């Protein structure tokens, strides 16, 4: 994963207030750097340091939220730098990639609210849009905005459309939507301005599940096309009807 080139540019550590440190790897999004951030964040979390409350990977940076009491109110930058260095070694040893997650999706008109619009904007047929979405090799770049809400990179470049000018006030639960080079899945009925291609019957986030979030940072994601019958059956099982 390009470790040699990455090692040439060490990340920048900055205070994010008095109780968190931001580790910036790049000022732009690139998928190789993002993948490396995911592995590092996972390694940093798995060390379960008593002073680390949260390790939050994002597009080109990660944050370490600390417990100032556990650090005796000293500067958290150096401990974070040390933890990072230890995990950089882990990363080289492990070279780990995320889990492969299969997400059933129904692209039928009732759920693919913006397929016609995307078709017009891209000059592709609706079926081509569906095919290219389904065959995109996605990975989870970040989970944020809402619990379990993933930002997926890897969308086929031919599907790049801008955000809609008028956001929807309520996205359907499980709506799968695209904008620019990314794809998102809405875990709750929340506002959203991305173009909807379909819907998954799976429960995207459930705080009572052992693994509450369907998507974890660094996961690889493949969408699997299901028809309306398959959607209904799974929705019944998941209780998302």
């Amino acid at each position, binding site marked *: 994963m390009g470790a040699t080139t990455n090692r040439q540019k060490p990340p920048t550590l900055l205070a994010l*207030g*008095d109780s968190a440190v931001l580790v910036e790897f790049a000022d732009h999004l690139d998928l190789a750097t993002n993948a490396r951030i995911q592995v590092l964040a996972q390694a940093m979390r798995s060390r379960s340091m008593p002073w680390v409350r949260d390790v939050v990977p994002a597009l080109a*940076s*990660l944050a370490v939220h600390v417990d100032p009491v556990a650090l005796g109110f000293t500067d958290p930058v150096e401990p974070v730098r040390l933890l990072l260095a230890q995990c950089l070694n882990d990363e080289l040893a492990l070279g780990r990639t995320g889990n492969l997650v299969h997400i059933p999706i129904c692209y039928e008109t009732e759920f693919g609210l913006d397929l016609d619009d995307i078709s017009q904007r891209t000059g592709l047929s609706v079926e081509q849009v569906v095919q290219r979405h389904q065959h995109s090799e996605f990975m989870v770049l970040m989970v944020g905005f809402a619990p*379990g809400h993933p930002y997926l990179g890897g969308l086929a470049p031919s599907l790049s459309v801008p955000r809609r000018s008028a956001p929807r006030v309520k996205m359907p639960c499980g709506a799968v939507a695209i904008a620019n080079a990314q794809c998102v899945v809405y875990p709750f009925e929340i506002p959203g301005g991305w173009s909807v291609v379909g819907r998954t019957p799976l429960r995207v986030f459930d705080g009572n599940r052992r693994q509450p979030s369907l998507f*974890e940072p660094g996961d690889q994601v493949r969408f699997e096309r299901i028809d309306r019958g398959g959607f209904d059956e799974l929705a019944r099982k998941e209780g998302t009807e």
Partner: protein
Amino acid sequence: MQTTVQDCGRHGWQHVGVVPSGAMDCASLQLANALVGNSLDLAGLEITLRGPTLLFQCDTLLALAGAQFGARLNTGGHELPCPLNRPVLLHAGDRLSIDQPRHGFRAYLAIAGGIDVAPTLGSRCTYLAAAMGGFEGRALKKGDSLRLAGDAHDLAHVRFDQLAGDPTTAATQLHSVRWSVAPRSLPRDEPTAVRCVDGRHRHFFTPGALAAFEADSYRISPQSNRMGYRMLGARLERAQAGDILSEPTALGTVQVPADGLPIVLMADHQTTGGYAKIAEVATADIGRLAQLRPGQEVRFVRCTLAEARALAQAEHQALQVAIQAIRLKYNAPTAGH
């Protein structure tokens, strides 16, 4: 206006978009817990602006800390003012009516043994935006019935007996003690000084914007909530335009969206965001900010990271001193009992 079940927060889940939430003024919740002999992170009620009326179905030891609400206790046919910042023993059938704060914005009600809602991801706190945790993931409403710890009744008596070195004031029918602790986190003057360290995008703003941010006062907008405090005042102009790649945020991040009006991220904030960070509120001043209500004024005062850490340490130590003093009361030898 709003009462939710809160504890000291749900840590360790921000990587899947779950913010810690928890008490907006955590020191006051901890103080309330200490007053009833609880460990500091048990779940209590966060009562904002207007309090509920609570009917107790078993004997209960409780304490109210934080904002100075008016509270009345209906016990055995008598109506008495319920004192704040001290443990009070209630009996089954007693009714506690909490109205409005004279000073501050949020009170914390702790009960011996805590409030027994099922933990979600290791915490009992309510995260309203995701309808998670607390009591059915929402604010309490009329008619709700909250479970207390199974041994709440026994705990109330065991602990109140431990306090008997300070005799009860039976003459007034009120079972409490003659001491109280000083409230913490209550703002003393207005505009309230809110200390903050530099944000990482500070250099994105014009010198005029930076000067205004520090010199002018800001009024807290009515559109503020547990997610964020929106500020009304000088609009802060950026020297360089352009989007910021979405990145992690923190409790106290002061972000500036396109309209130029700063927003301070509070307990239920989003874990990531793409707005410029002009400043970060010092951890030590978060509770004090949370005790301000819409319409009140703040002034952002710049400090260094070392100062912010020293302030946090001083706050922490002062809270520990108060908590130790309370614990001594519980362990005091009981005179003639």
